[in-house]
């Protein structure tokens, strides 16, 4: 039987996702209508013999998280448990700490997935690839192709072109190593804990020798990428399965918009019933649009492409929304225009207002381009980016909010451009 572990991180991680992460842990942020990790869970349940899904992270168990666990278990009919780390233990430390739980019931193998990726999740293919390789069962890392310049932002994999064995692995090198990058999705066997254990032991020895000048550093912080994969490379144990399917990291709000588009496009292929369709009594729909059943949308509105409308959202007459995510409870009044933006939970946008951001999509002419891990400021100025309204923001009528980030519970009184509004 198989299991899956989703690494969901914790509050100190993912600060690039602010102010959206003030309201809800990033792994629960809705992309294409459902929480980010629901896409992971759905993919896991499609793998035969998947018996349990474990979430590992260091968030306090909030109401949002508990509610999500309940509803996901009901929907997918599989046990899902949250294992809370007592401290941030790293991508390897967390699973090592909970190895007994992961191995209980005797799974032959288990997937480990990072929560903040958007992917086609070719899990059955990874499993088939592992089985093809035969005994002893190898560890498989999902890889994809990036362009030379952007590969430096990821874990780089040098592999044998015939056997696909990982010969060399470097996390975020400063000079070019390889165009094949680590997707943050792995297939391990129980034997992996032996290797993680070795790293743990050697780290502990080092700390004892140093007589710990840094009292806060823990031996249990183990990073799969830097500490385990670099050690496993070239030893005949770690292999890469390359995919051409869609993949993106979700580090910033801009990448959430991009992921929204990728998943909506996947719906149009695999789950067209989830997407909205134009109808005579309903709003005009262009391209891929998700509308939650409880949302109320005026028939003169024009939505899409690449729009997700959340629970209980109100969309007034003559509203135009494009390339945007409208979160639960928000209200868009008549004649507003929302482009390349994320409108936060319970926010209100007044009549004729214009809320607009700048997309940070990867270069469409380069098939291997990835979304830029953008910096907020460049040359002392705010880089034009997706406009984000935090939760409960009020935008008055007739103003323009352009390339700006508005923190939660703010009531604006005028137009803003290229600013962060606290």
């Amino acid at each position, binding site marked *: 039987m198989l299991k899956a572990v989703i690494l969901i991180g914790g509050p100190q991680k993912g600060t690039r996702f602010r102010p959206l992460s003030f309201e809800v842990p990033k792994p629960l942020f809705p992309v294409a209508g459902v929480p980010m990790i629901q896409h992971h869970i759905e993919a896991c349940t499609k793998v035969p013999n998947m018996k349990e899904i474990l979430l590992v992270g260091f968030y306090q168990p909030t109401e949002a998280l508990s509610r999500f666990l309940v509803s996901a278990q009901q929907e997918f009919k599989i046990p899902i448990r949250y294992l809370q780390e007592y401290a941030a233990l790293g991508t390897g430390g967390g699973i090592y700490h909970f190895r007994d739980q992961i191995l209980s019931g005797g799974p032959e193998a288990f997937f480990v997935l990072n929560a903040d990726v958007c992917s086609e999740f070719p899990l059955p293919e990874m499993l088939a690839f592992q089985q093809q390789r035969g005994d002893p069962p190898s560890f498989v890392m999902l890889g994809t192709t990036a362009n030379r310049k952007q590969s430096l932002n990821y874990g780089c994999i040098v592999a044998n072109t015939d056997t696909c064995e990982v010969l060399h692995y470097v996390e975020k090198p400063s000079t070019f190593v390889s165009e094949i990058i680590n997707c943050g999705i792995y297939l391990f066997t129980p034997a992996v804990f032996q290797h993680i254990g070795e790293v743990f032991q050697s780290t502990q020895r080092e700390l004892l020798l140093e007589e710990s000048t840094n009292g806060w550093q823990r031996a249990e912080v183990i990073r799969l990428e830097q500490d385990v994969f670099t050690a496993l490379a070239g030893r005949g144990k770690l292999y890469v399965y390359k995919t051409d399917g869609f993949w993106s990291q979700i580090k910033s709000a801009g990448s959430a918009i991009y992921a929204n588009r990728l998943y909506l496009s996947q719906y149009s292929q695999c789950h067209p019933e989830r997407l909205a369709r134009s109808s005579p009594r309903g709003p005009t729909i262009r391209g891929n649009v998700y509308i939650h059943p409880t949302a109320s949308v005026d028939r003169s509105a024009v939505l899409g492409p690449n729009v997700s409308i959340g629970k209980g959202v109100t969309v007034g*007459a*003559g*509203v*135009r929304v494009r390339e945007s995510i409208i979160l639960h409870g928000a209200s868009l009044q008549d004649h507003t*225009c929302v*482009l390349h933006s994320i409108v936060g939970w319970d926010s209100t946008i007044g009549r*004729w207002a*214009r809320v607009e951001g700048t997309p940070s999509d990867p270069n469409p002419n380069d098939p291997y381009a990835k979304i830029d891990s953008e910096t907020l400021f460049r040359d002392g100025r705010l880089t034009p980016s997706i406009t984000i309204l935090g939760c409960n923001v009020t935008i008055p009528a007739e103003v*323009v909010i*352009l390339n700006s980030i508005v923190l939660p519970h703010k009531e604006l009184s005028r137009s803003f451009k290229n600013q962060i509004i606290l």
Partner: protein
Amino acid sequence: GAGAAPQRTGLTWRLPSPHSAMKALILVGGYGTRLRPLTLSTPKPLVEFCNKPMLLHQLEALRQAGVDHVILAVSYMSEVLEGAMREQEQRLGIRISLSHEKEPLGTAGPLALARELLAETSEPFFVLNSDVICDFPFTDMVRFHKHHGKEGSIVVTKVEEPSKYGVVVCEAETGRIHRFVEKPQVFVSNKINAGMYIFNPSLLHRIQLRPTSIEKEIFPVMAQDGELYAMELQGFWMDIGQPKDFLTGMCMFLQSLRVRHPERLHAGPGFVGNVLVDPSAQIGENCTIGPNVTIGAGVVVEDGVRIKRCTILKGSRIRSHSWLESCIVGWLSSVGQWVRMENVTVLGEDVIVNDELYLNGANVLPHKSIAESVPEPRIIM
């Protein structure tokens, strides 16, 4: 009787008694470059201000005051202007001559060029800048001028920032001008030259046929000679030669219309403040139009549009759910759906703005299609 306003019969105006018939010279000038892109398509005097060509505001008021001959001093001869003036001659029952300067003559030189026409009679004649809009006080000017009996009278108006203009220092009771200072560096007075004058034909002896500035060369001498008097203008005044001031002038004019001819303004649900709408324009549902909007002939405004402080010229279309503030939309242009335009965005003739764009201070030349937003002010060629 003498001084009675001309009566309108059908399409022509009947003149009052001949002895009050006067002449006027309007300094029209050249290409009107400050009002581009509008003046790339149409001579400036013919650009509609509050749904009437700029020049026609002056012509009609001059006609009302008893002027029967207007000389347009132009430095760029336009067939279009000539044709339009022939039409107005018929309609107003007024004689219109064009005086064409082949080389620049400044602000006084054109008077010398038109000397023969102006000196046809011994009556005083008006001289106006073509860009000036106000409640034209032409009848009061005649009375004031004849009362002091000297050679020249200038209309002055009070402004907040006098140093941008020619400033006048005069005696409070009589209006006799002591000094005339062009664009002073320090505060001298807050009364400025409003660009409307009335002169006796003897003034023409002071001006030669060469480039001459009336403000710098003629007025200071007349003031010294005690021959120049200032009449203060009551009410609004604006030089509408550039888009920003064109819109400010529009607001002032519409407010004046509210006081004098409120029936000409449009009222009803969805209309706010002073709004002028040509009867042939169509306005859709759920719009909010105004305050301070002028909508020209044949304009179509679709549903859900918000317009404030704008001039929409003939034949344009504003598509649904758009939002416009402080803009001039050129003739036959089309503004798409969900467009936002603001901050003195000016569209020339036949401009197309695609759906969902944002134009902030864009100055768009004629026959252009705009497919991208203009978030910061610039010129689109």
